[in-house]
């Protein structure tokens, strides 16, 4: 059973909205308070990257299940400049925007599954999954 919503990310207020929707879905799936906070924070990081580095995009929030347990899958997609060196981008502290450089690498640690797909000139897609324990 899949239950999905898609939201645009075009302004700072959208980042706040994404966080709120992810929080609601995380509660629905039955994530613990710690896991809710982790996935909400990851969503905040990835949504902000979409806004800041790609000038906007969208997120798909899906409630997923594999029979045994439920989970939340978030897919952030943009048609921005892409990331030339994925490994570098995933290095703690690496930033081209004067940030802490922990958004991508930190998000990877906050979730159970993390997939970064990017092509320079085409755009970036980040997919993360957090499973309920």
């Amino acid at each position: 059973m899949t239950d999905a919503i898609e939201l645009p990310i075009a302004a700072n207020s959208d980042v706040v909205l994404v966080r709120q929707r992810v929080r609601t879905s995380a509660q629905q799936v039955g994530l613990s308070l710690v896991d809710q906070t982790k996935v909400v924070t990851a969503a905040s990081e990835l949504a902000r990257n979409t806004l800041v580095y790609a000038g906007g995009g969208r997120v798909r929030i899906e409630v997923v299940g594999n029979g045994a347990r439920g989970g939340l899958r978030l897919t952030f997609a943009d048609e921005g400049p892409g990331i030339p060196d994925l490994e570098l981008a995933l290095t703690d502290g690496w930033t081209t925007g004067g940030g802490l450089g922990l958004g991508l690498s930190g998000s990877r640690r906050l979730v159970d599954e993390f997939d970064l797909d990017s092509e320079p000139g085409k755009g970036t897609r980040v997919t993360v999954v957090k499973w309920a324990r």
Partner: protein
Amino acid sequence: MTVHGDADRLRIETLLREQEERILKRWLDIAGAAAGGRADHGVLGGRMREIYQAMLRSLSEGDDSTDLRGLLAELSRIQAREGFTPSDTAVLVLSVKEAVYETIEASEETAALRGYIWFSKFVDDLALYTFETYVTAREKIITDQSEQLLELSTPVVKLWEGILAVPLVGTLDSARTQVVMEKLLQALVETGSEHAVIDITGVPAVDTQVAQHLLKTVAAARLMGAECVVSGIRPQIAHTIVTLGIEFGDIVTKSSLSDALAHALRQSGVQLTQGASKRVVVATERA
């Protein structure tokens, strides 16, 4: 309107002009009595005269009543600020009818009397207009107040001589965090405080951007000779911050605002004793 009607209209216009002083005086008497002691008659009289003259201009020039509407809107706003109800304001405008009617009656002119019906509708419209602008004015006042509340919703409070606190509540977007942090730094300068507590008990999530604002604020405060303590980091937030890889370095963190206050008090040389009666006894250490 018929030719006959136009003549009636003209007659009442002339009457309004010729009897200006008399009508105005009666209007002010009637409206002043209705308002009781709440209105400043001198100021109100001046305003009513302006409105009356604009009314005359609007009558003779036909449709263009921009001046008149502007004056009525202003009257409405002022009345709203002074706490009058919308019906008070409408009654004030409507009472010109009574003054005019008395004058017409005294003149014993049937043409003017017929014209009065038309004049009465004209005034009703004006009264309704003040009602509308009154509502708009009230809404504006309420909006202004809620904007001020928003400003106040992230206050910098003084906990103790030399100790400030900012309780952060709600979702922190970047802009708001920055405003709050700037406010704190400003307050540190203005009050000459050397300690600040940033309490994040009410914050549902701390991402790298919020953390960066926090870190920058603490660093800036240090440059100004002030020490910050971050309090209210709840377990789920602590987990997340650590997993993200954010380093708080040597920033002092406390679980609650009261622990943070106790820490800041100790740092500023105030001794705290937890008495048996659970009262906190405070004594300033003397050198």
